[in-house]
């Protein structure tokens, strides 16, 4: 018997008891809808964390100056700039796991263009900085080595600064004054968004570290070759924790610290924090999907229940079909197709409702939700599998009836 004919019989049988079929489907609708909505919420949470990692740059370690002890007084973090440009240069040279180490000088100040001004973060950087942060330009050019050497008065502006001073127009080529020193804008940075702690990463201007040291930040702290922090990028695939340990050892050695002395620097492995967050968001996503799957399971049991009732109710029909020549496979297929039809229609409605629900959650709760085609396909396949799994036992029961007993069934 052709599958099409079987499908027609199944649809006719489901139409006979519309309310019952609808209620049975409802179980699958709710199950699949819940799975879709929950995976969308889970995927949204994961995507948010992944975005943060991407905006920070992957495999990133930040080295900050630590406290120094002067005459028994511990001065606290950053009291003195204990890191130097030479430290930064030594790191990738001595440790193969490190791809780049970009030193920075950090300061704040007013930037002025025409009659508007804005207080922002000023970062003195080398050419390695954009590499380490995996930060691209929207327009213009990056710094070159000779810009750094010459302490050129040029600047790369972040999106927030550009928007504040120039609105929507392209700032490249304009001249702004940073702490009263005129700088030509040579490039506009791409948008990075918020950092993990909610800081606006685009509210920044980048100038050559030499310019920052000599012309802009200055001051007694900014001695010869000291730097405010070093951003280190570990090579893809390398063990970040191991690289971190090597780095610690190298810096202690370079700073001539005795075994009983504390580190005079801090190492912050930010991507580790983020990957922990990512792991927890993944667990959350799996948990949500698992909870939703329970309702799908309950829906499947509902199908099984109704199919068993249906087999009992239609025993005479089964007997008659067997008497006129239905083989047990025909009966098995008929009831299996009925169960799968129930679960697939329920699955399709559930996917639609789940999609609507995830959009509503995104709209009203403000959560980010992401619905991938894979989740839809998975839910569809899963509901078909539920139909086969829970429909098989009743269908087999029907197919194994003895024709004469089925015919005589009251």
């Amino acid at each position, binding site marked *: *018997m052709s599958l099409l004919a079987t499908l027609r019989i199944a649809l006719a049988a489901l139409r006979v008891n519309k309310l019952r079929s609808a209620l049975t489907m409802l179980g699958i609708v709710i199950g699949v809808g819940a799975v879709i909505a929950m995976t969308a919420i889970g995927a949204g949470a994961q995507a948010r964390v992944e975005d943060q990692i991407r905006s920070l740059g992957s495999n990133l370690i930040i080295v900050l100056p630590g406290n120094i002890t002067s005459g028994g007084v511990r001065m606290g973090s950053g009291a003195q700039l204990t890191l130097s440009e030479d430290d930064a240069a030594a790191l990738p040279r001595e440790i193969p796991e490190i791809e780049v180490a970009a030193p920075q000088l950090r300061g704040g100040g007013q930037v002025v263009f025409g009659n508007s001004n804005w207080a922002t973060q000023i970062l003195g950087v080398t050419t390695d900085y954009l590499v380490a942060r995996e930060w691209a330009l929207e327009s213009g050019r990056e710094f070159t080595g000779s810009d750094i050497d010459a302490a050129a008065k040029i600047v790369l502006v972040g999106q927030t600064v550009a928007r504040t001073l120039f609105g929507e127009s392209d700032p490249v080529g304009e001249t702004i004054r940073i702490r009263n020193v005129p700088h030509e804008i040579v490039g506009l940075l791409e948008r990075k968004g918020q950092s993990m702690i909610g800081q606006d990463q685009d509210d920044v201007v980048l100038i050559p570290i030499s310019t920052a040291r000599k012309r802009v930040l200055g001051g007694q702290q900014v001695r010869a070759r000291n730097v405010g922090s070093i951003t280190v990028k570990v090579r893809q695939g390398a063990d970040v924790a191991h690289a971190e340990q090597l780095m610690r050892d190298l810096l202690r050695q370079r700073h001539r610290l005795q075994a009983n002395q504390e580190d005079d620097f801090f190492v912050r492995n930010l991507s580790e924090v983020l990957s922990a967050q990512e792991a927890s968001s993944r667990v959350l996503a799996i948990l949500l999907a698992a909870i939703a799957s329970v309702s799908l399971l309950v829906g499947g049991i509902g199908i099984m229940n109704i199919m068993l009732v249906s087999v009992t109710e239609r025993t005479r029909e089964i007997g008659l079909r067997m008497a*006129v*020549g239905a*083989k*047990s496979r*025909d009966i098995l297929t008929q009831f299996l197709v009925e169960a799968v039809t129930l679960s697939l229609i329920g699955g399709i409605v559930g996917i639609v409702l789940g999609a609507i629900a995830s959009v509503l959650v995104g709209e009203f709760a403000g959560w980010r939700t992401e619905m991938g085609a894979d989740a839809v396909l998975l839910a569809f396949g899963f509901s078909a599998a539920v139909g086969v799994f829970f429909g098989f036992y009743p269908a087999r029961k029907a197919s194994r009836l003895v024709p004469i007993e089925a015919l005589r069934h009251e």
Partner: protein
Amino acid sequence: MTDPTPLVATRDLVKVYRMGDTEVHALAGVSVDIARGEFVAVMGASGSGKSTFMNMIGCLDVPTSGSYRLDGEDTAALRADDLASIRNRKIGFVFQQFNLLPRTSALDNVELPLLYAGVPPAERHERARAKLAMVGLDGRAGHHPSQLSGGQQQRVAIARALVNEPKLILADEPTGALDSTTSIEVMALLQALNRDGITIVVVTHERDIAAFASRTIQFRDGRVVSDARHVPRAAWTDPAPPSARAGSRDGARAGWQAPR
């Protein structure tokens, strides 16, 4: 009908049912031959084994011991699916309670055996329509069983039994749920089919109904107690149409026209 082998040949057919601790011998050694083209009535009180016998020769049930050859083919070695195939190709069933699928049109009901025979849809419709016309119901193809009278339902069931051109029609109390006028119509239809060469076995407990057959086999306690040939009672006085026709509630169409 030149084939000399009997259509139905049973030898020492025994069927034992187990009911708790006691064994019930529904059939206690039945050997019966039914030749091609016969019209046989199987009679007996309830519990005499006549229905069990019918289920055996209909391949709906398998004997405990003994052999059964249908159309020269030994059925003992066959599996359930092979038996289903034999029922589909060689046997047409007519039941007391019609056993039509509810909420399903007469045409779809008649098509059912063809569905399992794997006949393509267009041919299925055509053959089912032809059989419905043969039993005088071509105008009711779209009706559901609940919209048909008892006699009409039984005629749909007979069309279903005929649709795959079986050699044997087994009718289990075909008139048990019908009034006497309609019963005569149904028996006349079976006689007409028999005249066309189809072998018919009717199980009944009514002597009036058995009289339409040309041979009556009596069962008692699982055994054949008598087996006699006789002149069948005519459903109407040939060749004039029956007076019953005028009183028929099923309309003017004759349900007993010889099949073409």
